[in-house]
């Protein structure tokens, strides 16, 4: 009995020590990599990846999302939805001030969404067509009234989608040329301090942040290192502590993660749900043949690509909706690797042996090798193909002009099919000049109707039913060849605690991160 008590005591002490060890510590400097260098940090004007990664610490939105995509408080402490799904009421946090000391109020929210972002933010603008009015009955309350129910409405309050912009600085100005764009002012946990172009961006702790005790870090340096191998070296030599997902080539990941005191996580991309596929050109040419598209789909050894090229990171896609996105359907028609089936579909197709043009995504070695592996997969079942080399601008131009037979891409899904999936498959979204719409040229009126209907349902069960049907039809039609649900490991020194706690990872998570002080 005594032994039991002793062991219990030891266990309790050990647990207490462990908990104490996990207690956030104040202070410290975090060195992170940023690549490429962002064009600017004004998140209302620029929403590319690197801008979001840095500016996500400076700006905030009304909500954040956990890794299951459940909304959490941010600048809004509470929110409610009316029974008819038409009215959303947000109550703002108390004592929030902008980095220049001015108070943050509901008038800032109305200005940000209804004036600034409606003008500048292409992706949000598509969702705002559902919003009839935005009102501020008092300083702490904002009411959004919709034209009709919009299922994913609570999913558009992420900081990259709806950053809050200071009304007192931007109202009545030329937004794009406002001098304040060079010294961004938000409400976030870190303030902009300095940007030495080509070298680093320096953020410092916001001492007036409205959450007691946060942020924990004193400052963050985002270091601009253009070469992937040099970024790996910078981490190896201890000059940076955090490599956000996608910072280094995949073949360098095992070497770095094998080092002492190095941690890694694949979490923090759930909101984006990066989904990769090959566009199959259905406008004209051989890929208009459904049997050939099915032959291509079954010819692709995606497990090999994941294991050999992506170091085992990623999930083989089952269809258009990623498994981390809401309303994913697991039991879609079979599109697995099956060379024999591919040959049967090829025999049934009108393919006459012509050479198909594959456009790799010009984003580095992994993508190039993936295109080479795909070409080999296709050759093994009797489909001839060639790789067409381009740079990023050329890729944009060729994909937008439908100048390819197959073209690699990946797009974000933003947590909900209505926000990031429908755009790829609905026929009203076919237009030359853009590589982010329905590039394949897929037309199916039933799918159009299902997506349109599902977006305006307030009830999740009804939406699931409609999206399941849509996914079944799309997978059977194979307008694109789905590849992998991509995962980009975030690699960091284990002394850095809690860098990823939300569905957008290090883009807004450094508020809660801290460094163990040695």
């Amino acid at each position, binding site marked *: 009995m005594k032994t039991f008590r002793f062991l219990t005591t030891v266990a309790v002490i050990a647990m207490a020590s462990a908990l104490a060890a996990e207690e956030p510590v104040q202070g410290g400097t975090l*060195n992170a990599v940023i690549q490429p260098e962002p064009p600017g940090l004004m998140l209302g004007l620029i929403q590319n990846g690197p801008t979001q990664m840095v500016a996500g610490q400076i700006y905030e939105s009304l909500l954040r999302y956990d890794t299951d995509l459940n909304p959490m408080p941010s600048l809004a402490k509470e929110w409610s939805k009316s029974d008819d799904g038409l009215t959303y009421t947000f109550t703002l946090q108390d004592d929030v001030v902008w980095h220049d000391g001015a108070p943050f109020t509901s008038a800032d929210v109305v200005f940000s969404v209804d004036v600034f972002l409606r003008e500048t933010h292409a992706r949000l*603008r598509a969702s705002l067509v559902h919003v009839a009015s935005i009102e501020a009955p008092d300083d702490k309350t904002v009411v959004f009234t919709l034209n009709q129910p919009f299922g994913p409405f609570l999913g558009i309050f992420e900081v990259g989608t709806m950053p809050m912009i200071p009304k007192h600085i931007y109202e009545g100005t030329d937004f794009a040329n406002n001098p304040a764009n060079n010294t961004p002012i938000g409400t976030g946990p870190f303030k902009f301090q300095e940007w030495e172009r080509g070298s680093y961006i320096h953020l410092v702790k916001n001492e007036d942040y409205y959450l007691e005790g946060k942020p924990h870090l004193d400052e963050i*340096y985002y270091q601009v290192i253009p*070469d992937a191998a040099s970024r790996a070296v910078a981490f190896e030599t201890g000059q940076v502590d955090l490599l956000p997902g996608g910072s280094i080539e995949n073949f360098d990941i095992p070497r770095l993660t094998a080092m002492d005191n190095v941690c890694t996580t694949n979490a923090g991309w759930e909101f984006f749900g990066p989904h990769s596929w090959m566009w199959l050109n259905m406008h004209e040419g051989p890929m208009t043949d459904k049997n050939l598209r099915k032959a291509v789909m079954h010819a692709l050894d995606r497990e090999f690509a994941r294991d050999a090229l992506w170091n085992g990171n990623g999930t083989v896609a089952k269809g258009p909706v990623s498994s981390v996105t809401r309303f994913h359907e697991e039991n879609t028609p079979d599109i697995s690797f099956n060379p024999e089936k591919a040959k049967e579909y090829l025999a049934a197709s009108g393919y006459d042996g012509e050479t198909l043009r594959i456009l790799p995504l010009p984003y580095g070695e992994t993508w190039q090798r993936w295109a080479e592996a795909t070409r080999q997969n296709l050759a093994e079942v009797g489909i001839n193909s060639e790789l067409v080399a381009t740079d990023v*601008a050329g890729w*944009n*131009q060729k994909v937008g002009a439908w100048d390819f037979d197959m073209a690699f891409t990946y797009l974000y899904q933003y947590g909900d099919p209505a926000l990031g999936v429908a755009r790829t498959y609905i026929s009203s979204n076919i237009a030359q000049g853009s590589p982010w719409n329905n590039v394949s040229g897929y037309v199916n009126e039933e799918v159009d109707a299902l997506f349109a209907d599902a977006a305006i349902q307030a009830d999740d069960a009804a939406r699931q039913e409609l999206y399941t049907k849509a996914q079944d039809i799309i997978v059977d039609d194979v307008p694109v060849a789905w590849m992998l649900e991509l995962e980009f490991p975030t690699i960091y020194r284990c002394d850095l605690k809690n860098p990823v706690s939300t569905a957008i990872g290090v883009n807004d998570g450094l508020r809660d991160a801290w460094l163990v002080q040695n």
Partner: protein
Amino acid sequence: MLGFIAARLVKAVFILLAILVLNFVLIHAAPGDPAAVMAGEAGAADEKFLQDLRERFGLDQPFAMQLWTYMRGAVQLDLGYSYRQQMPVAELIWDRLPATLLLTATAFVISIVLGVTAGVLAAQAQGTWWDTLISAVALIFYATPLFWVALMASLLFSVVLGWLPGFGYQTIGANYTGLDRVLDVGKHLILPASTLGLFFTAIYMRMTRASMLEVSRLDFVKTARAKGLRNSVIQRRHVLRNALLPVITLAGLQAGQIVGGAVLTETVFAWPGIGRLMFEAISQRDYNVILGVFFISAAMVLLFNLVTDILYGIVDPRIRIAT
């Protein structure tokens, strides 16, 4: 001589204008435009977004109008606005210029001093194992791709030995001042400047050696020997001075590239210079930045060509007489 310089300067202005027009046409002929690249980075775009960007940057104007607008600005030294970096191109280039000058000028000095010295030594020791060793090392540096040398140098001296920083221009966050800052920047400069310098060192070495050997077989050297002059005097006054002509030509060419930066070295070592700026601008189709860097580089090449011609006259009196 003054007339010669004035004529060359006038010619240089016309060449510069022609280069500007040619660059403008070539860059606009490449597929894709900056609006599409910027929209691509944002991950989504609608027609309004693209149209707004094109209007803002004047990309919706007819090609001839865009060219006219650019040329009108350029002759007033207004290099335009960077679409992606969202700031004036001149300011951007001015910001990056010190880092580039420091890197390329250091590499220039390293390569000339090491290259010419090694070339002279090899020529004097022709046929010995010293000559073979120096020539072989030079050949290796000349034949090895620069980016590979850069990566290996970084791996060896930064990761394995831990002696030198592997990237960047300074220790970020250290906020050094005075001598400490000079030493810090100097430490960061060693790897990129040596890597960049080694390639040119090899060229200078081979050129100096070949030129020295050629000159030393000429009649006036035999005459000098017959006069009983000491070998060191013959080598220094007669052989080296005459052998330097091709070296000066090469130095002029290298000096012309000083302002253009070193794309590979700056990229691998994250050196915040103009070469890297240009590389990024090309992939982003940031037309004005590309044109701005090309403009400055072309101007420098023309200037150093002129300086080279003048130096020729000083080193070789026959040329001075001819002009």
